[in-house]
């Protein structure tokens, strides 16, 4: 199939796919409202929008996963009603999912077979799989089980699985969110090749620079409606962002008079064995973080960031107390509560289930981290007034939008819950704040509020350690950036010197400093 271009592709008058007034209603909520888009062959068409703008709903309808409530889709000029994904696939629509649709305990070949319609034998399919992955430079071992593979390899399975159907139309939902810049570049080569082969690509992304580089057309959604269709190459990232948000995003500004003070968080040669087969061994991690400073930790997910967070927060204890020093006190052996009493605060990556108990009220969640070092508990009894006051202060200071005064954590949207969690910790006036993925899956407006709060906290003299997958975020707020790879932490680079290329190399495991270090030893 791959030696020839797909059959029946003509770049004639009708677009490959056109949606006309496509609407999807969930109860009274309009996820998509009268959306018209045209996707042409040999085109990479970006779909932009904030979380909840309706991008996923739209592509689910195109892939046949949900039925539109109103409106229609036209495929090559003719009306198309899809009974389900397998019909979409048989027409030539392929999809690469954001949260991979893979089966961890099945092999690569079995995963690919599940995405096909099973008309060829398993053996033929496996042979074709190897051929396709070779032709497109996406190497895969068909016999490995998925749980053994890295994130990048998992995405390769998704892409190869879609390509095995020889699609005319390929949907990719935020494919680069989990990739290093270099891996993303390799993906773009593949996508440009697919485009040159005459296929159409619908590309969902949050990364505007990437969209400007790669895409020919962009459709922007906001609140379930189409705002505009434009040529992203003719726009700026700022103008695209304005259309997505529907107004100016508050600029995040670093307070001018920020000074670094004494070391607040020092990590000396911290190593930690993994506690389960999936986790990463921390190897000889050292850094020093002063008050007033923000250190960023970049890296592809799963390289030890979670383990480092657990070690710093006290969820796992270090063997040697002196490996972690908080404000001059050896703390490696201390519990979370004891570390909080030393003035440290922690914001984990996962909001629901780690940062908060989903089915507990906000005031109860405030108590859970605030009980040790604030007036919330008196003689063993909970001071409800104090917990409610924390909720009110967080609400006011950080613009947390919620339906009532003290709702369950799970009822808040991601952005608002994240503002509450960050606010809850900042209101305790910590001297050390360790925060993981502060704006992951948060809309641009809330992200700006959170980043500003972090900068203000640093200006007030606290030391901040920020782990993030988002290099733009790290560039915006940090003073230095270090990279985690396989449990090692690189030497921090000043943010001004940390180009995407350098960080990308470090994220891929090369060691920039090695040559220089060798020179130093030689001299």
């Amino acid at each position, binding site marked *: 199939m791959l030696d020839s271009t797909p059959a029946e592709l003509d770049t004639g008058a009708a677009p490959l796919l056109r949606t006309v007034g496509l609407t999807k209603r969930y109860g009274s909520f309009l996820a998509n409202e009268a959306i018209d888009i045209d996707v042409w062959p040999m085109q990479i068409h970006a779909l932009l929008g904030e979380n909840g703008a309706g991008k996923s709903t739209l592509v689910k309808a195109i892939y*046949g*996963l*949900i*039925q539109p409530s109103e409106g229609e889709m036209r495929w090559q000029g003719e009306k198309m009603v899809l009974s*389900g*994904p*397998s019909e*979409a*696939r048989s027409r030539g629509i392929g999809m690469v*999912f954001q949260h*991979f*649709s*893979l*089966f*961890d*305990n*099945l092999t690569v070949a*079995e995963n690919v*077979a*599940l*995405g096909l319609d*099973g008309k060829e034998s398993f053996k033929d399919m496996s042979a074709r799989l190897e051929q396709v992955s070779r032709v497109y430079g996406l190497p895969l071992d068909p016999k490995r*089980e998925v*749980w*053994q593979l890295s994130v990048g390899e998992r995405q390769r399975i998704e892409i190869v699985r879609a390509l095995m159907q020889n699609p005319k139309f390929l949907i990719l939902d935020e494919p680069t969110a989990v990739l290093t810049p270099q891996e993303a570049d390799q993906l773009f080569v593949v996508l440009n090749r697919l485009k040159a082969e005459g296929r159409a690509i619908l590309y969902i992304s949050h990364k505007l620079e990437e969209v400007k580089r790669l895409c020919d057309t962009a459709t922007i959604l906001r609140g379930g409606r189409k705002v505009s269709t434009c040529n992203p190459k003719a726009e700026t990232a700022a103008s695209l962002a304005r259309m997505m948000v529907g107004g100016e995003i508050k600029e995040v500004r670093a307070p001018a008079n920020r000074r670094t003070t004494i070391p607040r968080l020092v990590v000396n040669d911290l190593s930690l064995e993994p506690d389960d*087969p*999936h986790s990463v061994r921390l190897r000889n991690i050292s850094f020093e973080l002063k008050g007033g400073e923000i250190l960023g930790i970049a890296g592809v997910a799963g390289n030890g960031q979670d383990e480092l967070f657990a070690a710093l927060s006290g969820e796992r204890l270090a063997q040697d107390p002196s490996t972690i020093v908080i404000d001059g006190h050896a703390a490696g052996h201390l519990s979370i509560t004891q570390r909080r009493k030393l003035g440290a605060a922690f914001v984990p990556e996962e909001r629901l289930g780690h940062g908060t108990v989903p089915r507990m009220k906000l005031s109860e969640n405030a108590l859970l981290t605030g009980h040790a070092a604030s007036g919330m508990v008196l003689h063993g009894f909970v001071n409800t007034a104090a917990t409610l006051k924390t909720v009110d202060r967080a609400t006011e200071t950080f613009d947390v939008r919620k339906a009532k005064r003290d709702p369950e954590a799970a009822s808040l949207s991601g952005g608002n819950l994240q503002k509450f969690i960050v606010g809850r910790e900042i209101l305790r006036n910590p001297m050390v704040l360790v925060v993981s993925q502060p704006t992951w899956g948060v809309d641009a407006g809330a992200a700006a509020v959170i980043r500003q709060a972090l900068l203000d906290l640093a200006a007030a003299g606290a030391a901040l350690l920020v782990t993030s997958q988002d290099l733009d975020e790290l560039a915006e707020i940090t003073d230095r950036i270090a990279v985690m790879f396989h449990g090692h932490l690189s030497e921090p680079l000043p943010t001004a010197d940390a180009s995407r290329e350098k960080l990308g190399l470090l994220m891929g495991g090369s060691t920039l400093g090695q040559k220089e270090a060798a020179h130093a030893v030689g001299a």
Partner: protein
Amino acid sequence: MGLIEAIILAVLAASTPLLLAATGELVTERSGVLNLGVEGMMIVGAACGFGGAWLSGSVIIGALCGIAAGVLMSLIFALMTLGLAVNQVATGLALTILGIGLSGLIGSRFVGEKISLAPHLYIPGLTDIPLIGRILFGEDAFVYLSLALVAGVWFFLYKTRAGLILRAAGDNHASAHALGYSVLRIRMFAVMFGGACAGLAGAYLPLAYTPFFIPGMTAGRGWIALALVVFASWLPGRLVIGAYLFGAVTILQLHAQGWGVGIPSQLMSALPYLATVIVLVLISRARTGGSTAPAALGTVFVPDR
């Protein structure tokens, strides 16, 4: 007939209902559904199986009645957990309690009646071979059927596309749904298969083991079957080994009492469960990653449409 031969024959007979019920539950669990109602489905299968055989005079009709009863019970479970997305553990436990009551009601008029047991195979020459003849060629049809069933399930799970899809639904229902598979329909069939096997396993008891029905005659075999699936780490091949091992323990327990061995019988009856716990520990130590149990086991799935 030697003592060893007698013991082996007794072990095979005691193991067969375990193997039948566990094979069904294995398929159910592989699709991601944990049905703790095996004991309940079995006991209803026993009552209906006996009733069918007694009324019709045919063991085959009795077995079919047992299967049908098991399927009907499993459909209640499917309606609750798949249709209404109710918690599977709670529903399974309720199904067992319901089954025990229901079987008493159905079976009350059959208590004290007697039927003739399922005939054993007899091939002149082969069955007469000393020692192994009766063991290999002189069993009732259920014994051969149970082994064929395990082989069939193994072939289905690992060699057919439908089996692959079933395992996929049990590993990650969200992904299976995203690829366009009807998770609920797959699971419904798996639950029904589990019900059919449990019903047959229950019917085996009055049709081939003891020729009468008494309330509560499954005596915890459904729970052992559940433990057996875990013991086998969800692999059909190990199910056979586990079933005969667990069957042997129950028989040994009887003989140990007869021989006056000083092991408390309660300890002996706890052995299958102890063995299961030990196997679980061994599995989790031996694996370096991934998961042995179906990853979506016991989770409720509601598709968005």
